[in-house]
């Protein structure tokens, strides 16, 4: 991805870090200016991103796209380790290597109402969804009060956001799963993105209540384009690749207890 010449697949390009907005020490919104304009990104699609200088870190890190405007895209980066730390620390104007957009987003639904359940930075695809279409109900759960800057930032963008925190200090006490209680399998559909534990719980509830639910999974990735088989998840139809078959899967398709 540290290319100067054009990439014949059209998947890789250099992008410029155009702006960074901090939502705390370990949480940043980055705006990337792409050379080639992306066609309309589906909520749930992602990019692999790496700092282009040097061979370390070697691989791009996956981030869901949370906003798109002209040739700019936006991502939320939570600092989790070395790669995300370097990205967050990159100087403005620096070139980064990007592969994408990758994967399949949440499927358009024929049902009347979509309920989006996000765990923390799992809000990313739903920011994009709301940007594209104002209709869904969006529920954001965060671990606690440290996350207030994210909640405020998202609230400005998502009118009518439902907020949850375990201690109740931000929004409702509890987590976004609470919203599942009132859903009607005939007219409601669920989209979820967040920690695996949350997705598993969403799947369990929706399975029992026969609510159609799609979840966006996270696995480690190398290529992002279906080549390496590094990102497989076990499903009822055998192993599938998170990068090209997902990252969005039907919740009942995933074998949650296979490792």
């Amino acid at each position, binding site marked *: 991805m540290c290319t100067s010449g054009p990439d014949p697949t059209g998947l890789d390009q250099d992008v410029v870090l155009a702006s960074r907005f901090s939502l705390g020490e370990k949480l940043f919104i980055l705006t990337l200016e792409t050379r080639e304009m992306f066609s309309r990104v589906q909520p749930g699609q992602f990019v692999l991103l790496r700092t282009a200088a040097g061979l370390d870190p070697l691989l791009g890190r996956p981030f869901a796209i949370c906003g798109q405007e002209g040739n700019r895209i936006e991502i939320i980066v939570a600092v989790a380790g070395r790669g995300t730390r370097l990205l967050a620390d990159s100087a403005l104007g620096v070139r980064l290597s990007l592969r994408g957009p990758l994967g399949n987003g949440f499927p358009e639904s024929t049902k009347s109402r979509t309920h989006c359940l996000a765990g923390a930075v799992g809000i990313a695809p739903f920011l994009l969804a709301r940007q594209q279409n104002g209709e869904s109900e969006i529920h954001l759960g965060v671990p606690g009060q440290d996350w207030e800057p994210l909640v405020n930032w998202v609230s400005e963008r998502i009118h009518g956001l439902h907020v949850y925190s375990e201690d109740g200090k931000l929004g409702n006490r509890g987590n976004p799963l609470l919203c599942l209680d009132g859903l009607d399998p005939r007219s409601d559909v669920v989209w979820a993105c967040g920690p695996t534990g949350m997705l598993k719980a969403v799947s369990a509830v929706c399975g029992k209540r026969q609510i159609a639910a799609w979840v966006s999974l996270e696995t480690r990735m190398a290529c992002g384009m279906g080549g390496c088989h590094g990102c497989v998840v076990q499903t009822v139809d*055998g192993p599938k690749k998170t990068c090209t078959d997902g990252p969005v899967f039907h919740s009942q398709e995933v074998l949650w207890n296979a490792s």
Partner: protein
Amino acid sequence: MPVDRKGSEVFVGKVALRSPLIIASGTWPHGPEYWRSPVTTGVGAACTKALTLHPRTGNPGIRVWETPCGLLNSIGLQNPGLEQFLMIDLPSLSSGDVEVVVNVAMETEEETGKVLAALSEKQHLLGAVELNISCPNVDGGGMAWGSDPVQAARAIRIARGNWKGPLWAKLTPQCGDISLVARAAEDAGADALVVANTWLGMAIDTNSGTPVFSRKYAGLSGPAVFPLSLRLVWEVSSAVGIPVIGCGGVSRVEDVLSMMLAGASAVEIGTFHFTDLSCFSRIEEGFLEYLSVKGYASAMELIGRGKRKVD
């Protein structure tokens, strides 16, 4: 200005490749669009994922883990098996514009025999078979076949008996003296040697305090291992008369040149295209520029040239 890519043709034995760059096994999607222009610009051949007689689901748990300039993988030969490969994958791969090299994972004598017999019927569609006697991520077979000269020779003879086309043997660094294994493979009838598969490594998740991979060990690839692979290429190409294909850590045109100067006829690239898909076309351009600046009439002249002044 369009680049004239003519001068980069090489031969691996009788197999002509329009470029010395080969996509390494297990790293490239089988979708047909990845096996033809424009994606294959700069690519001479591409290896399929390892093929086995029966479908394999591969290893459970974490399968890839980044290390400094490297990648550990423990995929475990996930593949849909011979039947689906012949029906679905092969027709679309061979409709592209690069030589198709089928990577066949050495299993039992019987299984490998069946796979190769079936591939023989499609020989016209294939550039070569790459016999993988070096996979570190499976029990029984895999790397064990490549770990000593006797086993390696046995594997090659089984393959040779069932496949008359070009036969490349992919060696493992995990063997005592690789020259001995290489010579044994040559004597048993291999047409070329791929040097080499991944280096056995491991990772521990310090948070859980346990090994990252379900099989503990995994194979290391990527730029980190380049100096190690280059040494093996030099060693093997000094030991055998058949062509050698360099593999392991290639990321720059200098790496390709080094491998060829050390005796390789062609070079595989796996991990680095995860980082940069444009590497094939870019490296081929740098390669052509080097030939022209240094006054080489053909890419073949480069092969083993680094040795003449030293050995």
